[in-house]
């Protein structure tokens, strides 16, 4: 009935939903096409700085991308992780799905695959992402994801070495706090 077709996405990224809806309803294309189009929209628009190039720099200031697409009819999957220097992560994932028997490619090898499939290699850093990274360094690299290392990662930047005394004392406890929010998420 009128409940189908349908597209839903996390967060109020309405342009992504609209483009996915246009793909599935007006252009009569597949659910896979709609998901690819919707995610591509967010990659292009850099939704909330959490999708696509120019966001979420790592400790070295580099932006890398993760994406996955799954066909629920065949259970086929294509994914890329820590994809470097290629903007169209979900489309590269679609190529993994359609042109390989694998499920996931990672890092520089995923980049090489993307280039071989015709995708452009270019930087994912922007002035904005570099500014975010510089401010983080000026804030003594806070917050970060290190535990049981020295120097104290809650106060200082790395490089870090294992602090075996702390590890023995505290063990491997679950997280007590989260840096994740509506503007910093996977």
């Amino acid at each position: 009935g009128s409940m189908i077709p349908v597209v839903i996405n996390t967060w109020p990224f309405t342009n992504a939903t609209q483009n996915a809806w246009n793909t599935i309803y007006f252009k009569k294309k597949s659910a896979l096409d709609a998901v690819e189009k919707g995610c591509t929209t967010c990659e292009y628009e850099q939704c909330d700085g959490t999708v696509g190039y120019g966001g979420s720099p790592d400790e070295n200031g580099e932006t890398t991308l993760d994406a996955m697409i799954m066909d629920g009819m065949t259970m086929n999957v294509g994914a890329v992780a820590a994809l470097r220097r290629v903007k169209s992560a979900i489309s590269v994932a679609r190529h993994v799905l359609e042109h390989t028997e694998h499920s996931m490619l990672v890092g520089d090898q995923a980049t090489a695959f993307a280039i071989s499939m015709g995708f452009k290699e270019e930087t994912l850093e922007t002035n904005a992402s570099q500014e975010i990274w510089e401010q983080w360094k000026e804030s003594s690299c806070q917050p970060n994801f290190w535990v049981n290392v020295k120097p104290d990662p809650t106060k200082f930047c790395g490089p870090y070495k294992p602090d075996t005394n702390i590890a023995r004392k505290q063990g491997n406890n679950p997280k007590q706090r989260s840096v994740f929010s509506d503007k910093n998420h996977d």
Partner: protein
Amino acid sequence: TIGMVAIDAAGRIAAGTSTNGAKFKIAGRVGDSPIPGAGAYADGTVGAAAATGDGDVMMRFLPSYLAVEEMRRGSSPSYAGEVAIKRIVSYYPEFVGAIVVLKSDGNYGAACHGLPSFQFSVCNSQLGQVTVQTVECV
């Protein structure tokens, strides 16, 4: 991150994610988004789900897979999402994240934790236009 689920006019179901991950992650870190069952999952006989939040935690619980399996047991999409979120919270009370869940008949729901509320975006013929909906977190 964007996580998306869809059913087309032929009833085919798909799911996907795209993200640049966590700010200031250790180089090489990958979150849940590219992992089937964690960031998203789809089973044409049941439905699909897509999760968002703390990927280091979510990838340990496969919330999207769990939500789809909960629907396979007969649960509604909203309840299936709550089950998946509560499973994580039982181990990580400070967990921040959310999930959207879609059943093969077009019914859908969402659940979240650690946020004031969670907004997601949806469109079907009944709504007639893209609509942002909000759920209160568990």
